[in-house]
């Protein structure tokens, strides 16, 4: 087996920055925001060069100059004092940005300090600081700002300090929770164990991880500070010697621009504020997406269209005592993402499910079991696409069904018991209500009390007392939730039930109970079940036939006796070795070294070849066909040939 050992390279600061820049520059929203921000900062810096009039003097201004519309001499017109709005605007940028940045700096410094201290030291200090933060969060800040500024002298300094000292609450909260999260990470504990001091830990371990969040938060704080400053100035609370955009609006609004129709004096300063705040908002939104990327996928997005393709080699078993319910032929499912090769999650899988049959679907995590099951009902996530094959359910091809036909087959014909029933049940609706919903949807025209009777009957079937009907999922225990999920799956008397690892996350006793229940129900109701699991012991005990999957393809498929007694595929053999056999307690358990292949980067030959103890040269280059070994037995392996 070839294995390349790659030394993990320690990331250097410059490469981290380059990586960040690469992701950042591909985010158009963030780049637009940054460019807008740089432009207005340059305007503020070079105000002297850009202004066309001296705004400090009123010489040469006559009453004719008041509220003149935009013209060659005055690009944005003139204001109530006859001054050039454009020049005022350019200098106003300087005042507004100064207040915004300095006030935000104070807020972030105070908030960051409080957050780190609270999060790092905990205990009484934290309690006190967080209580204080909570109180300050509730008190409306603009009225408080107004009261304080109104009662002190509204100089630029005062305004910066008052805005800064009242704006720290959000920062302190965010920094505290991030510090708490970082504090308990392994490397911090390790640093502490080797005797690093508090200051060292804060500077070298906590600060670097809190910083990205602080930057995003800073952007929000700056924009709030600029908005607050302009609001105060508009209300007349600003430094009379330093003209900001808000003050320009105050003068224009209070001194008759409205009645003079001087829209320019009202529009231009406002656009300045919008420009800066929008730039910051876009930048913050973009940064947030870069630092905290989020897959915006959900279950209601339109799926990809099914690709219809003739099924090729079909392996239906010759001997058929019971009628066939579900026949899957050559089903292939890919996950398609832009600019990347598709992940071939399921390829050419075929199997047959008869009435009353219990089929075990076995394989390691990530080998396409769940994808295959979701594909049967076309419930794949938006990126998943059926690229070939057929799913015949009672003589009708599900892959060719219309949306409406599909809604009828789901739950009514084939239902699913999902793994992890905690999340599979809606937390804000009662369990009974959720079972009822399925019945109402599919069983037409049942009177209300009949539905309730049926719900009680179903709950009784899985051993849940009727008075638990009106309880919420969080009031159930883990085992009860799984039972409720089973009751829900049986609500419409489906022909086929898919049980997708129904016992994961349950303790061993409850697991046994649930399995027993499933087996009992199957006998009682004559259900056909596809049982997805990685527990071969359960399969041996309950199933009629077994399909072993590896890396998205069928490895071996046969009845349960054949699989256990004469497995041909090396993967099946290795799997069997990995499970305890009670009849041979002295036998050592073996594990299969390595991991299943990544589905977007599959080996060229047999998918199991890299881990196969019996692989030959050919296995690495040539994909094995499915070989029919016996009337009830197929395996895809070069070794079984001939």
């Amino acid at each position, binding site marked *: 087996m070839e294995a390349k050992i790659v030394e993990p390279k320690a990331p250097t600061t410059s490469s981290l920055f380059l990586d960040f820049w690469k992701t950042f520059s591909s985010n158009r929203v963030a780049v637009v925001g940054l460019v807008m921000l740089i432009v207005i900062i340059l305007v503020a810096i070079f105000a002297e060069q850009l202004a066309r009039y001296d705004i400090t003097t009123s010489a040469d201004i006559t009453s004719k100059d008041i509220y003149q519309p935009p013209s060659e001499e005055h690009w944005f017109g003139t204001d109530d004092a006859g001054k050039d709005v454009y020049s005022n605007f350019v200098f106003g940028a300087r005042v507004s940005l100064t207040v915004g940045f300095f006030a935000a700096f104070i807020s972030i410094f105070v908030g960051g300090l409080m957050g780190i201290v609270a999060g790092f030291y905990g205990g009484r200090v934290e309690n006190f600081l967080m209580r204080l933060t909570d*109180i300050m*969060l*509730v*008190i*409306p*800040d*603009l*009225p*408080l700002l107004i*009261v*304080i500024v*109104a*009662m*002190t002298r509204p100089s630029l300094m005062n305004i910066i300090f008052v805005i800064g000292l009242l704006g720290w609450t959000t920062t302190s909260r965010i920094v505290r929770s991030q510090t708490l999260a970082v504090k308990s990470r392994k490397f911090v504990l390790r640093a502490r164990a080797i005797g690093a001091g508090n200051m060292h830990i804060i500077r070298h371990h906590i600060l670097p991880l809190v910083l990205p969040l602080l930057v995003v938060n800073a952007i929000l704080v700056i924009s709030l500070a600029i*908005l607050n400053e302009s*609001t105060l100035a*508009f*209300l*007349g*609370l600003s430094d009379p010697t330093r003209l900001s955009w808000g003050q320009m*609006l105050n003068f224009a*609004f209070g001194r008759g621009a*409205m009645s003079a129709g001087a829209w320019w004096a*009202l*529009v231009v300063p*406002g656009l300045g*504020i*919008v420009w800066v*705040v*929008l730039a910051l*908002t*876009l930048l913050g*939104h973009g940064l947030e997406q870069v630092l905290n990327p989020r897959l*915006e*996928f*959900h*279950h*209601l*997005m339109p799926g990809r269209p099914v690709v219809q393709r003739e099924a090729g080699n079909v392996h239906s078993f010759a001997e058929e005592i019971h009628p066939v319910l579900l026949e899957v032929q050559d089903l292939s499912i890919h996950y398609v993402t832009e600019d990347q090769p598709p992940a071939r999650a399921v390829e050419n899988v075929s199997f047959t499910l008869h009435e009353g049959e219990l089929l075990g679907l076995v394989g390691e995590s990530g080998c396409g079991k769940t994808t295959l099951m979701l594909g049967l009902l076309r*419930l794949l996530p938006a990126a998943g696409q059926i690229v070939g094959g057929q799913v015949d359910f009672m003589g009708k091809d599900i892959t060719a069904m219309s949306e409406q036909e*599909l809604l*009828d087959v*789901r*739950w*009514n014909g084939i*239902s*699913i018991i999902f793994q992890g029933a905690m*999340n*599979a*049940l*809606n*937390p*804000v*609706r009662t369990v009974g209500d959720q079972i009822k919903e*399925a019945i109402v*949807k*599919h069983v037409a025209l049942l009177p209300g009390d009949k539905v309730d009777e049926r719900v009680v009957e179903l709950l009784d079937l899985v051993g849940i007392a009727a008075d638990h009907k009106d309880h*919420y999922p*969080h*009031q159930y225990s883990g085992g009860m939730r799984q039972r409720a999920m089973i009751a829900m799956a049986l609500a419409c008397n489906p022909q086929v039930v898919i049980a997708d690892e129904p016992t994961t996350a349950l303790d061993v006793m409850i697991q046994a109970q649930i399995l027993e229940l499933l087996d009992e129900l199957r006998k009682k109701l004559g259900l056909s079940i596809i049982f997805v699991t990685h527990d071969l012991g359960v399969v041996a005990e309950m199933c009629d036939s077994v399909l072993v999957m590896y890396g998205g393809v069928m490895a071996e498929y046969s009845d349960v006796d054949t699989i256990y007694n004469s497995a041909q595929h090396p993967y099946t053999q290795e799997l069997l070795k990995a499970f305890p056999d009670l009849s041979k307690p002295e036998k050592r358990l073996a594990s299969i070294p390595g991991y299943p292949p990544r589905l977007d980067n599959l080996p060229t030959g047999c998918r199991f070849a890299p881990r196969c103890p019996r692989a030959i040269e050919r296995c690495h280059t040539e994909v094995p066909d499915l070989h029919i070994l016996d009337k009830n037995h197929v395996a895809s392996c070069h070794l079984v040939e001939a």
Partner: protein
Amino acid sequence: MKRQQYLIRKISWAFFTIIFVLILNFFLFRILPGDPARSGIHDPRLKKEAVEAIRVRYGLDKPVINCIAKINPVEFGGCLINPMDTQFFIYVGNLLKGEMGISYHTNRPVSEILVERIWNTILLIGAGQILAIIFGVIFGIFAAWKARTTIDYVALLSSLLAWSLPTFWLGIILLFWGSNHGLPIGGKATPGMSSMPWEDQWIDIFRHMLLPTLTYTIVFMGEYMLIMRSSLLDVLSEDYILTAKAKGLSTFQILKDHALKNAMLPLVTIIAINLGFTVAGALQIETVFSWPGLGYTIFESVNRRDFPVLQGTFLLIAVSVILANLIVDLTYSYLDPRVQAES
């Protein structure tokens, strides 16, 4: 049991915060340089006796609180006097009786002015908030449902833009536009309207409310939309939505029965957190449109240096926000059955 504990915790927290605000409100107006004692009495033409008379009239001759005789500049002393005879406890006692002092400007009791005006603010915030929530939720649902399509991007960008608009400036622009299209330029009613039949009076108030409410809706809708969108996206990627889909429910049924209630929960929290912004927005809008509510009262009293009114209004606004917060918290506990289970 658990819900009871939750309620008691929330209510006692609100009570504690109100006490904090009471204390803050009292000292703020005595520490800062513009306190009533000096600003009202700073006129050099006033005789010493007149100044003293004013001090007595407003109770400013009494010690601030036990052990602190004067606060700006600090003067200690008088620890042994009857607490009920200090400025602080007289202030608390008066508040309990509903007395907030007399306006410097109009000589009317502050409480009378506030009672008159609070309803106008409630009317404006109520109408704007309801519209903003309705439209925000509707657009948010669309954006989340059509995530990563053009509809989504347009909705996202316009809500970011709406967020970036200074509220008062949007008000000015709308007022400018409205005044050129025959809408009233401010106030709550046209003078002389009180002699008209009541339908006409209501239509008149409605016309005056149109633009302020529109401003409010635009400013707050964007944020509600963003929250609704991201919260619905979270909910729609939950496992129970897949269950609902597997059950054969249609997209509409899933949205209506499984997604909306769950997605609305974060919105309720945001409405509570945003109450401060709500007040700030109303304050700006009322100022631009001269809408006679609490916000406009603050603007007026700042310009007139009418400190009793400013102090009373600030207290009323802060306490209202705290109580509204409490109400939202309590509502939340009824909406989300899990709250009872939380420790």
